[in-house]
């Protein structure tokens, strides 16, 4: 699905960039495809319509038709406008009130409210040194209050003691007075998941809101949401006067069109996004990155950041030195394969690279196996130290031994040796160009992973 979508956008943009001049009909064709692409990325229809109209006005203006590379210009406009709609700046949580400042989290069932409550509380505690109290008003789902209590223990954040049978409004009152008495900076109210059309439960939320006067009322929404996102966001905003959105499951492979829809219909900034199951996996929302993702342009910034986190600097420097000397041996290759695995393997990297739709389909066509990296490392591990530094030593009988030792075949060993040779040659060439940007130099290993056609 997403591959075809990204492929489609890739084609559109390809066609545009190849053309020297653009006619009005070229742009119309392109925009039709952009429209479908956005719809397939789960951006809501009314939002898509507004979007395309706005782009068209700008694209048909002088700035595109007379520019040197009109195709590039259209892509730039689409991207810019997307960022604009998602909110051009990162917006932080608002703590400017007399403590205890009340935050309230609302949303549909299963959107991730309880986990987000704990994640935000932990962020406030760790990064901003705030004293936070969490309270669960969820009397609907079995063990929901217990869930928050356990998360509080894990996050080292205080939770309001559970009184069985107490109703949400009373729990909220108790939480706020406990917040005042206990000298807390922030009181976070986690609420039960509810449908925006459930009148009784929505009224309950309003009642809680009236007595707690939250500084932030955050809608917690699943990034995988489809067209319904506009209905949910509109209704919650109408009833609750939202101050922001927390987008969850951004680490899934959804295209996140819901983010655009909800931002557009509520005007509320997306403040944070959940990017994993662990409690520290909550990040500030970066509109430009999500825009790139919706467009299938890849998230290069995140890739670089991830690489910076995962790749040991020392190892990288050693590798750089070796490359400079042109002595890239099999042990180095194994090291590099290990780093590749840390980055999430081929799929992980491809997902973040621009134009990945096309790449990915090629990779699939070549039938690349994620286990390949593991196997290649196994082959290298089955070699003696001497063999690793002097690959030329590896002759027929040694190859058989290595294949048996690593559970592979002689052909696999041959392929690895050939790839190493190619990589070493590439490294040599590159070292002549200088070793600036190790990231880029580290990457040439990737093509080597593809089996020869």
């Amino acid at each position, binding site marked *: *699905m*997403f591959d075809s979508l990204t492929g489609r956008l890739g084609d559109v943009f390809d066609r545009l960039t190849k053309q020297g001049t653009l006619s009005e009909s070229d742009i119309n064709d392109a925009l039709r495809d952009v429209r*479908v692409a956005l*719809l*397939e*990325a*789960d951006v*809501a*229809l009314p939002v898509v319509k507004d979007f395309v109209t706005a782009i068209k006005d700008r694209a048909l203006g002088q700035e595109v038709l007379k520019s040197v590379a009109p195709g590039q210009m259209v892509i730039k406009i689409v991207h810019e406008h997307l960022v604009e709609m998602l909110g051009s700046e990162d917006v932080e949580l608002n703590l400017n009130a007399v403590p205890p400042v009340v935050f309230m989290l609302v949303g*549909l*069932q*299963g*959107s*991730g409210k309880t986990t987000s409550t704990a994640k935000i509380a932990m962020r406030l505690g760790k990064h901003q040194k705030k004293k936070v109290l969490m309270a669960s008003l969820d009397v*609907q*789902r*079995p*063990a*929901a209050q*217990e*869930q*928050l*209590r*356990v*998360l509080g223990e*894990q996050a080292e954040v205080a939770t309001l003691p559970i009184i069985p049978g107490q109703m949400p409004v009373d729990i909220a009152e108790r939480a706020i007075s406990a917040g005042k008495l206990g000298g807390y900076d922030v009181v976070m109210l986690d609420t039960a998941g509810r*449908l*925006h*059309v*459930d009148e009784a439960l929505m009224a309950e939320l309003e009642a809680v809101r009236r007595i707690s006067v939250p500084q932030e009322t955050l809608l917690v929404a*699943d990034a*995988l*949401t*489809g*067209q*319904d*996102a506009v*209905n*949910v966001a509109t209704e919650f905003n109408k009833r609750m006067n939202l101050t922001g959105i927390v987008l969850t*499951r951004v*680490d*899934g*492979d*959804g*295209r996140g*069109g*819901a983010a655009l829809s909800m931002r557009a219909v509520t005007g509320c900034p997306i403040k944070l996004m959940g990017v994993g*199951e662990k409690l520290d996996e909550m990040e500030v929302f970066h509109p430009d990155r999500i825009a790139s993702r919706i467009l299938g342009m890849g998230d290069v910034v995140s890739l670089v950041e991830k690489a910076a986190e995962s790749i040991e600097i020392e190892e990288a420097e050693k590798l750089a030195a070796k490359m400079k000397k042109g002595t890239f041996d099999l042990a180095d290759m194994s090291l590099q394969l290990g780093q590749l695995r840390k980055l*999430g*393997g081929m*799929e992980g990297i491809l*997902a973040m690279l621009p134009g990945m739709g096309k790449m990915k389909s090629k990779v699939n066509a070549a039938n690349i196996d*994620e286990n390949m990296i593991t196997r290649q490392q196994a082959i290298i591990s089955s070699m003696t130290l001497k063999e690793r530094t002097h690959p030329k030593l590896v002759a027929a009988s040694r190859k058989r031994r290595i294949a048996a030792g690593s559970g592979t075949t002689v052909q696999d060993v041959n392929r690895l040796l050939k790839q190493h040779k190619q990589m070493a040659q590439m490294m040599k060439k590159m070292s002549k160009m200088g070793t600036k940007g190790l990231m880029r130099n580290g990457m040439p290993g990737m093509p080597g992973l593809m089996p020869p056609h």
Partner: protein
Amino acid sequence: MTTDAGPENGQGFFTRLKSGLSHSKTALSDGIAGIFNKRKLDDDTLDELEDLLITSDIGVEVAAAVTGQLRQTRYNKEITADEVRAALAEEVASILAPVALPLAIDPTRKPHVILVVGVNGTGKTTTIGKLAQQLRDDGKSVMLAAGDTFRAAAIEQLQIWGERTNCPVVAGKVGADAAGLAFDALARARADNIDVLLVDTAGRLQNKANLMAELEKVVRVIRKLDADAPHSTLLVLDATTGQNALNQVEVFQQVADVSGLIMTKLDGTARGGILVAIARRFGLPIHAIGVGEGVNDMQAFDATGFAHALADVEINGKS
């Protein structure tokens, strides 16, 4: 919240399904009525209809198929809102009918093992509670296995469902190996001569390779005791999910050999149109839909009812 009708009550089912889908069908049929109020079926109208279908999460492919059908037979003819609803319902029903299959329990298995999988927050544990109730109502002995050893209080949540439905629950410690727990549960269910074992699993996004490998392991370990188990692997899908549901089905099918689907949260404004796209692409049985948080808020999936509720044929423009 409606809790009146049992699953065997046909009248209650339809009412509830319709009320569950009422928001979606209102939006959709209002839109259709708007387009087709005594108009000729021209290109613009077809485009608008395609858009409307897309907004039900039905997917571009199916939307194009339905409008393509209309184009062939009715192009340039006067067409009423009712006619277009009927055509839409017919097309949707024809796609869904082959996959509307109830969950079959093999009585020769002791136990029949049902593994319940899905991404986080789709409603796996709640679905297990509802399934347990239905199976108990059918006179079967049911055991629950608290295989979500990751999420805080997931075990307690299942235990409460166990109490509500009067089923024994096999649970381990938080952070325990889910595969080992499933193995123990199966051994216990065998020893106790249980009819059906429902195994809960932790929610996992389908693009997390390590978590999917863990799920694969659960299946592998269960098979050590019973080579044919799990006899059913149910993927729970959230109706509010958009096109990503297709990815979910694809990957979970690859990893865990999904045998059927259950869609939850159809009592909101989400239209669940994605089910149509899923049915078209994968042809996997759709067993049931969830329409509320109560223990009885689950119904067998009925293709015609779903399609008609979506296209709003019954109401004939009164909405």
